[in-house]
């Protein structure tokens, strides 16, 4: 039988977000895989340029529902660097605490999704029930379950009261007990081990070559963690170890994430117990710059990078987001090589993809003769988009740009 190429996505029951994979099969075996991104492009980077720094922070917080604090903090760190703001210690501690609580809820969510993708729905139900503990803590501290809005230019927006600190510590004990139970399940449950071992194999060399980051890379023995390598916020004062594993497969990724959860509980305990006194934020100017900054941040999924260019006005001149999934998504093609079609959902889910973070326009506009025109400036791009929308029956030629 010859080779068959089948499309998976953009709409597919196994994947929650629209993304397209073209998979070439030889029988059940995958020969080659192509990843096409760009279905969720929302133009967030461009829309930041038309907004003030405070407004842009809220837009960037909505890049991703799960790592919302990640993007807001990464952006605000860069802006503070340009403005030369010295954030008070207490503000940094609160920021870091929310970051670690966010990592917990992201990893517990991932554990449930991974269980669901391999048909172990019992794990999904129990891990998501336990995730509610950390969601309730986030709601208690920030006011809302997602999109916490805990950042402000120059510090944290809300303080943490002693009662809340007590609640957080209580929640950590409960969560640690539950996570230890999941670690026990992951090391004992034979169906889980057999289903995940040697699935989505990514050797250490390949992981380095493809530049994988975060838990995906750490499960292949790539010992990188921005929290330790380039410490920001309150991480220089925290004691933690970077969890790595040499299983190189999906099972290794489960172990790394469960290990990171335990580290996160310890980190939050350290933060709550050593919370310094003092103000939580400093007053920030409305006009920032001129200057530019690259900000690094360890998101639950890997390293997040923001580039900010300020020109001395109230609005940023350029904001660039490199979400962790963009660095990891190409490794999926390598992981699935010589794998089976039935492993596609769990291997894709194993990098904890967030396609709405990742998606950006990669699009070459062709001349009538079929050759690419190269790059376009904003004015030409706008004219092109007006023409394109006219063909769809919408006239944007009179629309104003903010």
């Amino acid at each position, binding site marked *: 039988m010859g080779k068959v190429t089948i499309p998976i996505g953009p709409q597919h029951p196994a994947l929650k977000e629209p993304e397209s994979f073209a998979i070439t099969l030889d029988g059940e075996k995958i020969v080659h895989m192509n990843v096409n991104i760009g279905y969720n492009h929302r133009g967030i980077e461009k829309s930041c340029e038309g*907004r*003030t720094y*405070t*407004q*842009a922070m*809220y*837009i960037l*917080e*909505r890049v991703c529902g799960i790592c919302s604090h990640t993007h807001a903090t990464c952006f605000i760190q860069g802006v503070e660097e340009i403005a030369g703001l010295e954030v008070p210690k207490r503000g940094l501690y609160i920021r870091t605490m929310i970051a670690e609580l966010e990592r917990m809820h992201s990893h517990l969510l991932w554990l449930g999704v991974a269980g669901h993708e391999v048909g172990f729905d*019992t*794990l999904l139900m*129990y891990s998501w*029930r336990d995730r*509610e503990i950390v969601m309730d803590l986030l*709601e*208690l*501290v*920030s*006011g*809302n379950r997602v*999109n916490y*809005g805990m950042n*402000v230019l120059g510090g944290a*927006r*809300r303080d943490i009261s002693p009662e809340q600190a007590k609640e957080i510590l209580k929640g950590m004990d409960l969560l640690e007990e539950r996570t230890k*139970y999941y670690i*026990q*399940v992951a090391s*004992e*449950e*034979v*169906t889980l*081990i057999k289903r995940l071992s040697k699935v989505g194999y990514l050797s250490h060399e390949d992981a380095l070559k493809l530049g994988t980051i975060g838990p995906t890379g750490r499960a292949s023995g790539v010992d990188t963690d921005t929290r330790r390598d380039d410490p920001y916020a309150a991480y220089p004062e925290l004691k933690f170890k970077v969890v790595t594993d040499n299983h190189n497969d999906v099972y290794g990724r489960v172990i790394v994430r469960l290990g990171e959860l335990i580290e996160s509980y310890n980190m939050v305990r350290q933060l709550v117990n050593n919370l310094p006194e003092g103000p939580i934020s400093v007053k920030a100017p409305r006009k920032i710059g001129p200057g530019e900054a690259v900000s690094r941040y360890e998101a639950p999924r890997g390293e997040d990078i923001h580039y900010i260019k300020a020109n001395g006005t109230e609005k940023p001149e350029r904001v660039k987001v490199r979400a962790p999934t963009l660095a990891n998504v190409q490794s999926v093609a390598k992981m699935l090589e010589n794998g089976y079609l039935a492993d596609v959902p769990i291997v894709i889910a194993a990098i904890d993809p967030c396609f709405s973070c990742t998606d950006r326009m990669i699009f070459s506009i062709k001349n009538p003769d079929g050759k690419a025109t190269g790059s376009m400036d904003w004015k030409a791009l706008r004219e092109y988009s007006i023409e394109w929308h006219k063909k769809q029956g919408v006239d944007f030629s009179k629309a104003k740009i903010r």
Partner: protein
Amino acid sequence: MIKPGAMLREVLRHMAKKPATEQYPFVKKEKPPKFRGKLVFYAEKCIGCNMCVRDCPANAIKITKKGDKQFECEIMMNRCIFCAQCVDSCPRKALEATKEFELAQLDPKKFKVVYEAAAPKPVENTEKKPE
């Protein structure tokens, strides 16, 4: 030790327990004190500095001058992203985030909430009903 059915005991243990699911529309959970819900506007406190309008990421607030030191506020609840930055930006605490969150609406006109202008002195119960 590798054994099948590692979660079996946990599952059986929960058979005698109540479900973890919250019975939402029937039993409502108390919202935390910092919850950011529907905005309310106190017209008598507003000084018309427009800081809320400048900081709103969603262009959801409109302040119009109706007379000497009297300002009308129009909040588009369908645009609001409930970040409550306007509440933090307001120097006179003329805006407040309430705990009301059940704001789904079939009629799009009802999303627009207008708080009529009021005299600047503090008067009890000046909050006007939505149109």
